């Protein structure tokens, strides 16, 4: 007769049910609470920035501010030319950066798998993405502002293009690598060569991913201030030619925020609202484009 062991059962359960000793339990609880507090602390600045930019921005935003030129203190002015300048500089930068960025991404994903040059270029892209934006501005100053003897939209666009480049390269490479290998095989099997495969199969399939990269690059470039301060500088006139100093929203916020006049300070908030909405919209749009496809 084998005993069912029922007399021992309560003991066993008691043993299994031993509560965690007080120290370990409270350490566990305490750390959980701490990590929740840390996460909440991190979200406070986000909401505070959004709240103040919305409230102060909307209260000083009006049609005149958006469409007129800066005026001497005392009279009503605006920053229409800075909005125009921002769009032009970012558009020039995008036009410069996209071809190089997308082609480099294609090289890294399709041509240069596992060779030394490929590793070298990828390393270069990572290093470039870590270069402070102000240093890129210093570089653009040395390359374009000193020889041309004047700050210009070109110099600003050149600096922003370099800043966008690593983002576009990386996102393009990632997007191309997500395309199943079988797609390439099928295309090659049908007799296409490598160029045809890339141009007609791989790039169209990865198109939303590439667009995401470009949009993320634009959203980064639109908010950059440091490289524009002395490359595009500022202007109180409407844009005429890209080889003259050009105003932009970001540099305008910087100079107005530190000015002594209250109407300029409130214009800085209005410009921040515009810039923030622009940057966040493009950024969120980029994520949405990517998610819909994959």
């Amino acid at each position, binding site marked *: 007769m084998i005993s069912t062991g029922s007399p021992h059962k309560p003991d066993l359960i008691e043993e299994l049910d031993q509560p965690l000793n007080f120290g370990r339990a409270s350490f566990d609880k305490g750390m959980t609470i701490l990590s929740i507090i840390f996460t909440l602390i991190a979200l406070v600045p986000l909401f505070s920035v959004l709240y103040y930019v919305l409230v102060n921005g909307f209260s000083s935003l009006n049609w005149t501010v958006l469409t007129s030129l800066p005026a001497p203190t005392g009279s009503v002015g605006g920053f229409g030319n800075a909005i125009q300048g921002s769009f032009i500089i970012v558009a020039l930068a995008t036009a410069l950066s996209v071809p190089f960025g997308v082609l*480099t991404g294609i090289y890294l994903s*399709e041509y240069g798998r596992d060779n030394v040059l490929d590793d070298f270029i990828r390393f270069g892209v990572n*290093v470039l993405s*870590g270069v402070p934006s102000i240093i890129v501005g210093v570089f653009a100053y*040395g*390359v374009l502002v000193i020889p041309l003897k004047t700050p210009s939209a070109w110099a600003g666009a050149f600096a922003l293009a370099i800043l966008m480049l690593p983002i576009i390269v990386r996102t393009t490479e990632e997007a191309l690598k997500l395309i199943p290998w079988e797609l390439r095989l099928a295309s090659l099997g049908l007799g296409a*060569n490598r160029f045809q495969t890339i141009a007609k199969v791989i790039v169209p399939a990865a198109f939303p991913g590439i667009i995401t990269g470009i949009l993320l690059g634009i959203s980064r470039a639109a908010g950059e201030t440091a490289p524009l301060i*002395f490359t595009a500088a500022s202007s109180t006139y409407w844009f005429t030619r890209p080889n003259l100093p050009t105003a932009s929203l970001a540099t305008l916020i910087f100079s107005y925020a530190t000015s002594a006049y209250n109407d300029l300070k409130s214009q800085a908030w209005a410009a921040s609202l515009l810039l923030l909405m622009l940057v966040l919209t493009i950024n969120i749009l980029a994520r949405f484009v990517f998610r819909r496809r994959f």
Partner: protein
Amino acid sequence: MTQLTRKEEASSEIFTQEGTLPADPIFNNVVKVAGLAVIGVLIWMTLVVAGDSLPAIRQFGFGFLTDSNWDPNSDQFGGLSFVFGTVATALIAMAFAIPIGLGIAIFLTEDFLPEAVLTPISFMVELLAAIPSVVYGLWGIFVMIPILRPLLQWLSGGSSSGYGLFTAGLLLSIMVLPTVASISREVLKSIPRSLRNASLALGATRWETIFRVMIPAGTSGIVGACVLGLGRALGETMAVTMVIGNAPEIPKSIFAPAYTIAAVLANEFGEASGELHLSSLFFAGFLLFVITLLVNILAEIFVRRVSLERQ
């Protein structure tokens, strides 16, 4: 995944065979040139920034690093106070950003909340990185400093104006937080689940598992995330320029105004008064370039170690 890799290997031979159309070799060269252009830009940048700082290097040499006297009127330039300010603000920023960022990363990966709640939170943390730094600066001047001023004045014995080293470091920590948090989160996510389950099965509590298994397993990646954050903090310009107080001297206390390399470039580059002044600014920029380059290469080494371990 391994199957695919074998397939890739088998097909790479077909893939590298050149077609009959000339388009393929031409395109091959075009993309290679684009890739080389990225490296070219990096080398060009180094040459330009180093080349334009030559007059200052000849004039001051290493003395630039030990002299804190910056006086454009008498053509005397020393960069010590800028280097000090740059390093000090970045370290203050990391002192806040590392614990908080790591706390967020753990909170977002260790099954505390359902996925439906986590996605918006991590999205919001990433939005912090999308806010332009000049907007942080504006917010810093008109919102953060008025709130902090009484506290800072009490801490510093009444001398603080709100602008200074500590304020700049604090604002910077908000800006590098997303970098630290999102990369650490990726690292923790990539650690195999079995490791965590084994630890829990041995009777460890959740936080014992985190501290003794998850964090040690992810050390090199987490260090990489922190070093990347440090690189960002060292080079960040606008927000720091707007709240640090811009005093070209070694601050006497953590609450006193100071200056960073990036800030002096932003303020003085456009209206440098003479050739030596401009060249000294290029020299300061070159120093910042070298410092961030070294920090980023270090980060790269740590991050690469993670991907090697995973293979």
